[in-house]
């Protein structure tokens, strides 16, 4: 494929400046220590409350970092697919390559913003919390030195990967893929290092009672480290994919040609699919993280689930429900693009009911006190029952079954299987899915009445049954649809506009959710900078009420989108790219 003659090959100067600033801040603590002047505990460098300033900077940095970490992961995967299929299907390969590049489009500008917000965060932290940061530097010294190196390596890879895209085509594509791979490796390392600092503050390890460093390895690999690594890795991909989908939705809505609309429809679909797929694992990654926190200190268990933050988790449950329902709704609307999908569409209302019912259980609070007029003073028996772990596990796993079956239907839509055993095979598939759902339900009910240790085992079995069932039925489905006749090609670009607005909504929701959970993760430490070791003795060291937190989180979300909009405007300056052809529309698309 050939992109236009004016590829955007300018390196935004902001990135360079930010990088220098970043390195300077990283060096600052070393200087401070070297001078060994008495360090004050707190200072107020910004005009606003330091806590608030750090909060905003940290969350913005995290949002951008999540984006620039995640997008290269799936963009590279897509690029790789395209590369592998180049011989078989050059048109398809060109399309994949376009998609990967299009997803990476916001990266350079977003990367500068990551660096700038990171530098800002570093400066604020070191100047507003000197005692804490001195302690962190003492503990993590070597990592503070390594971090910028990987950061620079990531930067170089990113800019080369993005700007050398067109040059490294054809026979040199492998070099480009390699560059992308390096970018991802460096990016992941950068995140893992930063995660070590963040989790050390929650679940310190590798230090003695007084907080003096015993083993740097133990401090890095503290109890919370791996769970957070896993959780963030997956969540970042969901996050990046939804933002790409929202970008595609915007381009779809403002598209002038059908070819453009078709491509961006496809891009939005892909983004949503990636998001939905990764979202399936998130609840479990979240439980894993929570589990380690509870194991580290019972205080976390009490704070997060029964105490000050318990309300937050009800909100989280609702917001997650909106994400899942929105993504599923978009997927169901996608059936409209497929001529001949009527049989599949008839089943969707039932899925809708199942999904809504499942999420009602999932979001049910266990202990919600009623107002005095309605109150019997007791927690409601129904809510008490539904609000427990076992019913929620049933709900979550069955929701995943529904989503998976929706996906199977999407695969089937508009296709006529040609294998002889198609009818029997379909029946077996349905029977297996029914069996899977019944087993999950049965296990859950059994677990509900069983003691806690058995209950944990049954919930693990539920997940195993789910995974096993998915694998088996999917293999059957693969063979069943082998060589299936296509009644009509997917009509990309015919997705209703409401579907695009949903994608934009989902992007907003996930950024907001990230902000909310950022507050929860930091807030869970309560009055500690480093849990149990460095106490927060600054004035106003309490948790802001949830309402205030929600306002700040919303403000951060809006700032994030405003900045992303700027990044978007910058990337749009980079010349028009030629569009690849889409199937039978080759003629129109060549324009």
């Amino acid at each position, binding site marked *: 494929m050939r992109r236009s003659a004016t590829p955007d090959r300018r390196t935004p100067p902001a990135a360079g400046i930010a990088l220098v600033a970043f390195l300077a801040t990283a060096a600052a603590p070393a200087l401070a220590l070297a001078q060994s002047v008495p360090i004050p505990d707190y200072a107020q460098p910004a005009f606003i409350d330091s806590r608030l300033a750090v909060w905003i900077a940290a969350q913005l940095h995290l949002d951008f970092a999540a984006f620039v970490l995640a997008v290269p992961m799936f963009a590279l995967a897509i690029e790789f697919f395209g590369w592998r299929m180049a011989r078989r299907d050059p048109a398809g390969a060109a399309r994949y390559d376009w998609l990967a590049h299009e997803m990476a489009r916001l990266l350079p500008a977003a990367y500068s913003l990551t660096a700038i917000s990171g530098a800002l965060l570093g400066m604020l932290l070191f100047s507003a919390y000197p005692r804490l940061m001195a302690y962190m530097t003492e503990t993590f010294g070597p990592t503070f030195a390594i971090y910028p190196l990987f950061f620079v390596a990531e930067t170089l890879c990113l800019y080369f990967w993005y700007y050398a895209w067109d040059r490294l085509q054809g026979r040199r594509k492998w070099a480009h893929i390699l560059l992308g791979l390096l970018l991802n490796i460096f990016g992941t390392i950068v995140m893992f290092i930063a995660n070590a600092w963040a989790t050390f503050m929650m679940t310190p390890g590798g230090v003695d009672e007084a907080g003096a460093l015993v083993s740097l390895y133990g401090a890095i690999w503290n109890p919370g480290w791996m769970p957070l690594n896993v959780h963030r890795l997956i969540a970042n991909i969901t996050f990046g994919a939804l933002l790409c989908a929202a970008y595609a939705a915007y381009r779809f809505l403002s598209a002038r040609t059908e070819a453009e609309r078709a491509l961006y429809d496809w891009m939005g679909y892909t983004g949503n699919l990636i998001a939905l797929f990764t979202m399936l694992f998130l609840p479990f990654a979240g439980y894993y993280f929570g589990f380690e926190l509870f194991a580290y*200190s*019972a*205080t976390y*268990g*009490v*704070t997060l*689930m*029964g*105490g*000050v933050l*318990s*309300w937050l988790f009800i909100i989280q449950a*609702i917001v997650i*429900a909106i994400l899942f*329902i929105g993504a599923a*709704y978009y997927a*169901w609307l996608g059936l*409209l693009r497929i001529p001949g999908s009527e049989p599949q*569409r008839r089943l*969707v*209302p039932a899925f*809708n*009911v199942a*999904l*809504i019912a499942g*999420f*009602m259980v999932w*979001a*049910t*609070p*266990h*202990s*919600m*006190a*009623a*107002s*005095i*007029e*309605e*109150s*019997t*003073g*007791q*927690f*409601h*028996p*129904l*809510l*008490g029952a539904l*609000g*427990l772990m076992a019913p929620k596990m049933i709900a979550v796993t069955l929701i995943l079954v529904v989503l998976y079956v929706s996906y199977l239907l999407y695969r089937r839509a508009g296709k006529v299987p040609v294998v002889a055993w198609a009818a029997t095979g379909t029946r077996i598939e349905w029977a297996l899915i029914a069996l899977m759902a019944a087993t999950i339900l049965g296990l859950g009910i059994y677990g509900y009445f069983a*003691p*806690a240790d058995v209950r944990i085992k049954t919930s693990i079995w539920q997940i195993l049954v789910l995974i096993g069932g998915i694998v088996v039925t999917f293999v059957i489905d693969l063979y069943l649809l082998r060589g299936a006749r296509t009644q009509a090609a997917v009509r990309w670009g015919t997705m*209703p506009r*409401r579907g695009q607005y949903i994608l934009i909504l989902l992007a907003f929701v996930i950024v907001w959710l990230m902000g909310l959970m950022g507050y929860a993760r930091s807030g869970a430490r*309560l*009055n*500690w900078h480093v*849990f*149990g070791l460095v106490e927060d003795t600054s004035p106003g060291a309490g948790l802001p009420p949830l309402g205030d937190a929600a306002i700040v989180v919303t403000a951060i979300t809006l700032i994030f989108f405003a900045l992303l909009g700027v990044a978007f405007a910058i990337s749009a300056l980079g010349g028009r790219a030629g569009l690849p052809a889409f199937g039978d529309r080759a003629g129109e698309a060549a324009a």
Partner: protein
Amino acid sequence: MNAGSGKTNHRWLPLPVGAALIVIAAFVALKAVRPVIPHSVILLYMGFIVLGTVIHITLEDTRIRRFWNFFLSHPGEGGWPKLQRLAVLALLPAAAGWWAYDSVRPTYAPPVEIFQRHPTVGEATLARIVVPPWAAAPANWRDSDIAAGKTLYTANCVVCHGERLDGAGPAAAGFRYPIRPANFRDAGTIGQLTLPYVYWRLTVGGIQNQFNSAMPRWVAAPGDANASSLHSNDLTPDEAWQVILFLYRETGYTPRAE
């Protein structure tokens, strides 16, 4: 309107009427459950139900068309469709009006309190609480301590927490706001807590700034100068541990590991 949508309009139940009926039915059903489901939870459930309804209607373009068509008058339609239309149209302002009225009408209720089941306590506070060796491991609990705990429980706690430890003692109904005495058989109470935490609950009771309930304070916190002026502090620390062991043994729960 084209022939197709015209025909669908003559279905037995027009789409908007069906949607309205589902939402109303769900609301009435939730309101009818006894004991009463808290208002905020009903709101939550209704949000989901309305969302599901909107999704259902907007899944297909034809359904959206049917939905809007219902609100247009068609030449030659009878009085029945017209009546349904008016009814659905009247519903929205009526609901909005009720909502407005409901939120401004005077009530005697204090604001809804989000009761924290397990108020947060600092790690340092818990670390100061030392579990005596004889109480630490459930396997080593002595029957004599459990028996002593039972006596203490019957004397001090039954009035509120009930003979069967289910939170239904004779005095329980008197303490319904913000929360009744705890039902120890519920999986959400002592089964979730560590021994020091439960002990802490006994030593602070419910009457303090952090949270409010009728739960008295049973043991003086060490060095608490005005302890006795606030509460009776009937139990010695050992007695408190005995009651706690009894709570666990009687309900079959084990304390959460620290």
